[in-house]
């Protein structure tokens, strides 16, 4: 992430999200979408902003680092990707993706959708993209947000919207056949990659905050950073954060380059970042003391995200099982090195 375009994106997005004040979220989202950052990594011919997965990861990373609640992972990483893969165009406004498949049936040439779909950010979205099972076909379809569907609101531990859409024969606004390989497992993997990047970024935010806290604060008459136990905690935190960052970045690179073993990389990265979240949050809170447990401190915004995101798109148990299943067909060491063996 050191080449120039990415550094520029990082700087621009940081300037947008790293602000305090009224309606921080609304303003950040407005500026991000005006700048096209909510659809980065989605090809321009599909209505996206162009750029690759590396650029997209930078945007998601910065937003997660600053714990600003904007759905860039949901719009660009998931919805835009689904639409582009299916050859559909991204509608104007906020378009997010369903985590579940809808059931479709055709009636008088109209595709009608039913089902209970978990759709993060649905309450704010203009459109929802979903995978559809229709007779023997796999489709991708767009549901207009104002189609009179039932919406049950809910939030994750960080207070981010995790809504439920209840569809009962809603007409799709657009649809197309899903290309081969685009299935529920592929969607889950895509989401897992996004959350890996976000978890690593949130973990980095904990480290930065903890480092600042222990150098600025005193206890028993000397800076916290002078206590050996504090130093040891901080070093363990840095090790865990670095592991999370390397795994997420390596998985992004593997997917970006279309590596044959990209699926293993994503599984390992989501497992590493999900499993690391606990220690990072625990050390972060331990080093910040009671102060970090107040809702007024920034720390809680990132630790609650660590706790929420680690469960989303499969926690480490899910991906451990996935890796174990992959070992049924491949020997251990070649799986690790990404070779045929």
């Amino acid at each position, binding site marked *: 992430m050191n080449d120039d375009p990415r550094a520029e994106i990082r700087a621009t997005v940081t300037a947008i999200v790293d602000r305090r004040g009224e309606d921080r979220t609304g303003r950040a989202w407005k500026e991000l979408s005006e700048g096209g950052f909510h659809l980065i990594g989605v090809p321009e011919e599909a209505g996206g902003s162009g750029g690759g997965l590396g650029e997209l990861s930078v945007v998601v990373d910065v937003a997660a680092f600053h714990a600003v609640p904007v759905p860039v992972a949901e719009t660009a990483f998931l919805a835009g990707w689904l639409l582009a893969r299916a050859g559909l165009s991204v509608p104007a406004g906020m378009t997010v993706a369903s985590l579940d498949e809808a059931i479709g049936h055709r009636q008088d040439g109209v595709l009608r959708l039913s089902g209970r779909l978990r759709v993060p950010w649905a309450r704010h979205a203009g459109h929802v993209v979903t995978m559809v099972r229709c007779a023997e076909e796999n489709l991708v379809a767009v549901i207009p947000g104002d189609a009179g569907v039932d919406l049950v609101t809910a*939030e994750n531990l960080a*207070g981010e919207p995790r809504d439920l859409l209840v569809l009962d024969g809603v007409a799709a606004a657009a649809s197309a056949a899903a290309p081969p390989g685009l299935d529920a497992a592929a969607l889950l993997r895509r989401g897992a990659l996004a959350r890996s990047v976000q978890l690593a970024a949130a973990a980095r935010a904990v480290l930065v905050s903890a480092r600042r806290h222990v150098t600025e*604060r005193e*206890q028993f008459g000397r800076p916290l950073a002078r206590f050996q136990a504090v130093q040891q905690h901080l070093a363990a935190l840095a090790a865990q954060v670095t592991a999370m960052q390397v795994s997420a970045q390596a998985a992004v690179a593997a997917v970006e380059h279309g590596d044959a073993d990209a699926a293993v990389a994503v599984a390992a990265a989501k497992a590493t970042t999900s499993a690391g979240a606990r220690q990072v949050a625990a050390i972060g809170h*331990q080093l910040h003391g009671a102060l*970090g*447990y107040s809702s007024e401190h920034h720390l809680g915004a990132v630790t609650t995200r660590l706790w929420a995101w680690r*469960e989303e798109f499969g926690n480490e148990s899910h991906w451990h099982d996935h890796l174990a299943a992959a070992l049924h067909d491949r020997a251990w060491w070649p799986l690790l090195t990404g070779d045929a063996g």
Partner: protein
Amino acid sequence: MTTSIHLPPHRLGEAARRLRDDVRSFLDGELAAGTFVPRCDAWMSVADPAFSRRLGARGWIGMTLPSAYGGHDRSPLERFVVTEELLAAGAPVAAHWIADRQMAPSILRHGSPAQRERYLPAIARGECSFAIGMSEPDAGSDLASVRTRARQVDGGWEITGTKVWTTGAHFAHAIVVLARTDGSPADRHAGLSQFIVDLPAPGVEIRPIRTIDGEHHVNEVIFEAAVVAEDSLLGERGAGWRQVTAELAHERSGPERYMSTVPLLRAWAEHVRQQGDASAERELGGLTARAWTLRQMSLSVAAALAEGRPPEIAAALVKDLGSRFEADVVETVRRLAGIEPRKNGPGLDGLLAEAILHSPAFTLRGGSNEILRSVVARGLGVR
């Protein structure tokens, strides 16, 4: 004190079993009547004054106090049985918990006859909630870093300063404040004294501090030249630190130091029984073994208290292990249950959300694990 921590096991007798049966019957009745739902960390965060009064009426608060002060002359081991049953049930006991656990023994030991008369019977009836004003802004784990001052004035004391992270001050009937009466901050432990301040009181402002779960359990308590009566001094002038340290041993010694997440564990055990996942079963067995051992240790600490042996080192050690256990329960359930935690969720998801959001507190309250380990190291003679 050279080889290991002496903590012989204790065996509860038949009387304890009968008492336990009584408490369980009571709790079953309350659950059936829907007066509460089991919650994690309820001893810190779920206060129900009516529930506390019902417990008081049954003689289950102030159990070890003398009957002369409304108590029941029972042993710390009988109190242990009641305590662990309430915790295992996740019952709403926060309205009387601090008063019963720390303030009753402290007032009995250090209080004037008038203070005993005034507070102890009310505590035993479950009608008097206490808060403890200890931590101050920017002090962190350094509890001796006290800047609140109490100045002797005509007819009493004038208290000025700020306390933070004060649990339950917003519903407490009184707060115990540690303040400097003599010397300067450089004297640290020396020159500190304790005061009991009835609430609400002029010059005392209580502001909520919301924690990362968005809830209001703790407060900032600001004393602006609040004047209290002469006899609100608790114990000896200048002996505040010694009194507080003894309270801390009480604070650390109870089964709540490993049981905060037991309601989650019990709910998960039911979930596992229905699921039949071998991997989850094994980890449930592992947590069960740890809980069994922690309970035996906690029981030994109670027995030491009952015999008048000060359990400071052992209590610190049990809390260190116990708080890790509490957090590991949360981690194991979340890793294996395959559900996303959800605030106010109706089942395991809600219990899990609450426990995750409280988990930083397990190792922060009652002394961080670093502090506890220092206490243990000192007990081993290496400092």
